[in-house]
C-alpha cells in the first residue's frame, strides 16, 4: 500500500500541476473572446461568472480539462460502439490499420535485419537507404501513397497500414540488427567448435539472444505505427478514425472534439505499448531470465 502510494504520488503531483496550468491557460486564451461576446450582448458578469463562462464555451480556443473529460466520457461510454460519433468506433478503425501496419513493419524489419546480418553486401548497400527513408517527412509521403493507391482502386485499411509499415519497420530493423549481432564472441566460438551451420547458429544463438532487442524495438514501432495510421487518415479526409476526428474537428473548430480524439489516441498508444511490454516480460520469463 505504501509502496503503491509512493510510486503514484509523484505522478499524481505532476498531473495536478499540468491540470492547474491547463485551467490557467484555458482562462487566458478564452477570456478575450468571452469579453468581446459579453460587451456585444451588453452583459456585465461578476468575476466568478466570467471565469465560469470562459470554461464553458462551445468552441473554445483552448477547452478546459473538464470539457474534454466530459466529451471523452460521453463519446466513449454513452454511445453505441458502432455509432459514427463513438470514440470507440474511431479508435477501432485506427487500431486495425495500426495493427496491420505494425505486423507488416515488424516482419519487414526482421527480414531486413536478417539480410543485413548475413549478407555483407546488404549491410553496405541497404543501410544507407533505410536511414535515408526515415529522413523523408512522413507528411510528404502519406498523401502520395494514399492518392496513388486510390488511383489503382486500393482504399481504406491497406494504404493506412502501409504508412504504418513505413514508420514501424525502421526501429525493428535497427534493433534486430543489433540484437542478432549481440551474442558474445565466446558464444559464437562455441558454435564454431561444434561446426554448427549458419542456420543452426542463427536459430540456436542469434535469435534467442535478440529477443530483448526485438521487444524493445517493437515498443517504439507500435507507437510509430499508430502515428502512421493517424497521419494516413489526414490527407484524404477519411470518414472514420482518430485522424478523421482530428481533421473534422479542425474544419468545424470543434476544439473539444480535437482534444478528445488526442486523448483517445494517447490511451490507445499507452495500451498498445503496455501490451508489448507485458508480452516482452512474459517471454523473457519463459526463457529463464533472472527476475529483475
Amino acid at each position, binding site marked *: 500500500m505504501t509502496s503503491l502510494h509512493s510510486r503514484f504520488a509523484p505522478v499524481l503531483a505532476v498531473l495536478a500541476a499540468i491540470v492547474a496550468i491547463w485551467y490557467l491557460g484555458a482562462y487566458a486564451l478564452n477570456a478575450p473572446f468571452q469579453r468581446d461576446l459579453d460587451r456585444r450582448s451588453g452583459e456585465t458578469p461578476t468575476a466568478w461568472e466570467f471565469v465560469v463562462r470562459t470554461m464553458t464555451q462551445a468552441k473554445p480556443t483552448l477547452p478546459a480539462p473538464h470539457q474534454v473529460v466530459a466529451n471523452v466520457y460521453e463519446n466513449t461510454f454513452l454511445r453505441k460502439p458502432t455509432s459514427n460519433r463513438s470514440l470507440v468506433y474511431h479508435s477501432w478503425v485506427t487500431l486495425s490499420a495500426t495493427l496491420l501496419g505494425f505486423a507488416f513493419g515488424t516482419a519487414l524489419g526482421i527480414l531486413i535485419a536478417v539480410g543485413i546480418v548475413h549478407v555483407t553486401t546488404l549491410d553496405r548497400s541497404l543501410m544507407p537507404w533505410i536511414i535515408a527513408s526515415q529522413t523523408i517527412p512522413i507528411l510528404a509521403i502519406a498523401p502520395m501513397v494514399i492518392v496513388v493507391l486510390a488511383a489503382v482502386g486500393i482504399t481504406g485499411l491497406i494504404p493506412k497500414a502501409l504508412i504504418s509499415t513505413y514508420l514501424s519497420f525502421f526501429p525493428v530493423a535497427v534493433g534486430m540488427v543489433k540484437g542478432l549481432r549481440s551474442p558474445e564472441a*565466446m*558464444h559464437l*566460438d*562455441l*558454435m*564454431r*567448435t*561444434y*561446426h*554448427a551451420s549458419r542456420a*543452426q547458429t542463427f536459430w*540456436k*544463438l542469434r535469435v*534467442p539472444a535478440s*529477443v530483448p532487442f526485438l521487444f524493445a524495438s517493437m515498443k517504439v514501432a507500435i507507437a510509430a505505427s499508430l502515428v502512421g495510421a493517424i497521419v494516413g487518415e489526414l490527407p484524404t479526409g477519411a470518414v472514420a478514425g482518430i485522424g478523421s476526428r482530428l481533421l473534422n474537428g479542425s474544419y468545424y473548430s470543434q476544439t473539444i472534439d480535437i482534444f478528445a480524439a488526442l486523448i483517445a489516441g494517447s490511451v490507445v498508444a499507452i495500451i498498445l505499448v503496455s501490451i508489448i511490454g507485458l508480452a516482452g516480460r512474459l517471454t523473457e520469463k519463459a*526463457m*529463464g*531470465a*533472472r527476475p529483475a
Partner: protein
Amino acid sequence: MTGAVVAASRLGLTFRTNDGPVEALSNVDLTIGKGEFVSFIGPSGCGKTTFLRVIADLEQPTAGTITVNGMSPEMARKARAYGYVFQAAALYPWRTIERNVALPLEIMGISKSEQAERIRRTLDLVNLTGFEKKYPWQLSGGMQQRASIARALAFDADLLLMDEPFGALDEIVRDHLNEQLLVLWARTQKTICFVTHSIPEAVYLSTKIVVMSPRPGRVTDVIESTLPRERPLEIRESPEFLAIAHRVREGLRAGHSYDD
C-alpha cells in the same frame, strides 16, 4: 609424426593490433601423442589460450605448421575432433543446464533418446544430477563451470581442450574434479590439453607439462612426468611429485628472468 594427435612445428602467431604486432606464439615445437594428458603452464599472456585456440581452428597461425589428428585444424574441427572448455563457462542463459548440455548433441543430430541418456551420464559425472532444470544464473560459478565441462564431454570427442576449467573453483571442489578428471581420462583414453596456473594441479594431472613464457609467447620446457598413471591424491606428498613440481617452478622462474 604419424599417430600424433597434435603436432606443431615452428608454429608462430602474431596478432596485428593498433599498438603494433603482438607475438602471442613464437617457434613452438610440440608433439602430443594419443592418450596423453598435457598441461600448459605459464604466466598470464604467454599464449596458452592462443595455442589451444590454434588447435581448435579458432585462430589462424601466421608461421609454421600444425596438424590435428594428422589433418589441418580446420578439417579436424569439421570432423568434430575435439571438445572445448572455455576459460569462462559460456553457458547460454536462456537454456536450462540440461538444454545447455544438449546443445552440441542437437547440432550434431543425435537422437532425442540418446541425448537424454548422455545428458544424464555427463551431468552425473560432474555431480550436477538434480540441477537439470535450473537456469545458469541459479547455479554458483563453480557449478556453471562443471556444466560447461559436461557440455564438452557430452559428444564424446577423443580430444579435450580445457582452458583453465577449474580456475574459479575452491580448493576442495578442485581436488575432487581433478580426481574425477583422471578417472574419466583413464577410462576413456581421451587426449587432454589442459591450461592451468597451478603447479600442483599440472603435476598431479599430467603425463607431460609444457612450461611457457611470454613476450614472445614460447615453450621454455617440456617435462615428461615419471609419475604412474594411477594417482591417489596422496601422491602429491611424494618426493617424485615434489621433484617434478620443483622443475616446473624452475622453468617458470627462468622464463621470468628473461623478461627483466
